[in-house]
Each structure stands twice: as C-alpha cells, then as structure tokens.
C-alpha cells in the first residue's frame, strides 16, 4: 500500500439523482489507486454509497468528509435533513420512510443503514429531528492482526 494521509470533502445536493453516487465512486477510485485490497474497497464503497444515497434522498444538502491514512479510511457525512426520530427503528432491516417514487427508483428498501453497519468497523449516528443527521464510519485498510 502506498500514499500518506489524504483528506477532502464532497458536497451533496438533495434530490440530485443525476450525480447520485459520484462521491462514492471517486472515493472508490482513490482507494483502488492506493492499492487497498479489493474486498476492503468493496466494503467501503458500499457503505459510502448507501450513506450518500441517504443524504440525497432525505436531506436538502450534505457534506461528506473523508480522511484516508495508511491504516484507516474514515467518512463523516453531515446532512441538513429531517433527522431520524428513532435510530434503532431506522437500523431495522426493512424499515423505511421513503416515499413511493424513491422505491420505484430502486431505493428505500430499508437496507441502507443496516448495509452500512454490516460493512464498516465502527459506525455512529447522531441525529436531531428538524436539523439533520451526522453519520460517521471507519474501516481499517489492512487485514486485522
């Protein structure tokens, strides 16, 4: 694996379905270019993509910060959205508040947050109803000892 610390931010616009996934897709490329093993890249990309889609579907806008070091990739996605009243309910597979048109686009199946949790090493969500949600997760970049 090569490269020192790397960090940056992507700005996400709510309901911008044309560019949805663009941030995750460039982050995926960034990790690939650093020589991160394919299975770790895949786990990270899935988590990042689900997080990005959540912000696009539910929020007005969001900021996706990332930092990549030799050992770890970390993402913090802060959105200006409706907030999540009951986080444990939102973590339940199959639970979704997505409107019909989102479901007809192939999202809102109630798998987003569970999918993120399943693929990352650590995940935290903090949310204030009416203000927004902050999701943080990280993944170790080398196989655990």
């Amino acid at each position, binding site marked *: 694996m090569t490269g020192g610390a790397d960090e940056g931010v992507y700005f996400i616009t709510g309901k911008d*379905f044309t560019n*949805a*996934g663009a941030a995750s897709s460039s982050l995926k490329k960034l990790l690939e270019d650093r020589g991160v093993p394919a299975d770790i890249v895949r786990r990270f990309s899935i988590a990042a*993509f689900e997080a990005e889609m959540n912000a696009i579907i539910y929020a007005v806008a969001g900021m996706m910060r990332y930092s990549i070091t030799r050992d770890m990739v970390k993402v913090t996605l802060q959105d200006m959205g409706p907030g999540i009243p009951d986080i444990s309910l939102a973590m339940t597979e199959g639970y979704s508040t997505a409107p019909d048109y989102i479901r007809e686009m192939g999202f809102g199946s109630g*798998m987003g947050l569970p999918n993120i949790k399943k693929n990352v090493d650590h995940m935290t969500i903090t949310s204030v109803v009416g203000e927004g949600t902050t999701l943080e997760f990280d993944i170790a970049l080398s196989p655990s000892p």
Partner: protein
Amino acid sequence: MTLEDIQTILNAAVLARRADLGVSIDRAYCADLMSDVLAFSVTNSLLITGLTNAQVIRTAEIADIRAIVFVQSKRPDMETIALAEGRKIPLLATQLSMFDTCGKLYANGLRSQSVDPA
C-alpha cells in the same frame, strides 16, 4: 459463459458502442432494489434488472457488477448509457420478462452463488 452467449440466449440488443462481448460471466443476480444488490450480490456478476436509471450504473460500479441486462423492453436514456460506457460496463436489453430472463440463463447453467458479505 460469455456475454455474447447471453446476448444470444436472450435475443438481446447491445446498448453500448464499444462493449466487449467476449467477457466471461459465470454468476447472475436479479433485483430492482439497489441495496439488495449491494448486500447480497457477489463480484463480477451479471445484473438483471427492470430499472434503467443512472443509480443502477453507480450501483453496478460500487458492487463490481460485470454487465447489466435490462428486461421487459426497458431502455436507459443516453446519459445513463454514456455513464456505463465510461465505466466499461456493457449493457444489454431484452424483451423478455425478468422471470423468463433468469429462467433461461439458469437453464443454461448460470447461478447466483450468493454469499453473506458479513
């Protein structure tokens, strides 16, 4: 099985201009819900779907999908095709339903081999 074999079995149209039909495909996954693909599909699968928007291409890229078949005469728009071309993901379109598409490919030996990603 190659993508060309799949094209023949499904009597499918090729939607990209520079698609490599010689690419080898040995797994398939069908879904319209993208989180389902992200959670359960295995890398290098063929994705069979009735959705034609840009997120399908993004999902395919994230999940390392090798090629996509759109079923039931559905066609993506030019932007979506261009997105797939940029990511070297070949696109096919068939008139068959998702059910018959999967059935015919299964009958020809294709399987899902789903694994638990956790």
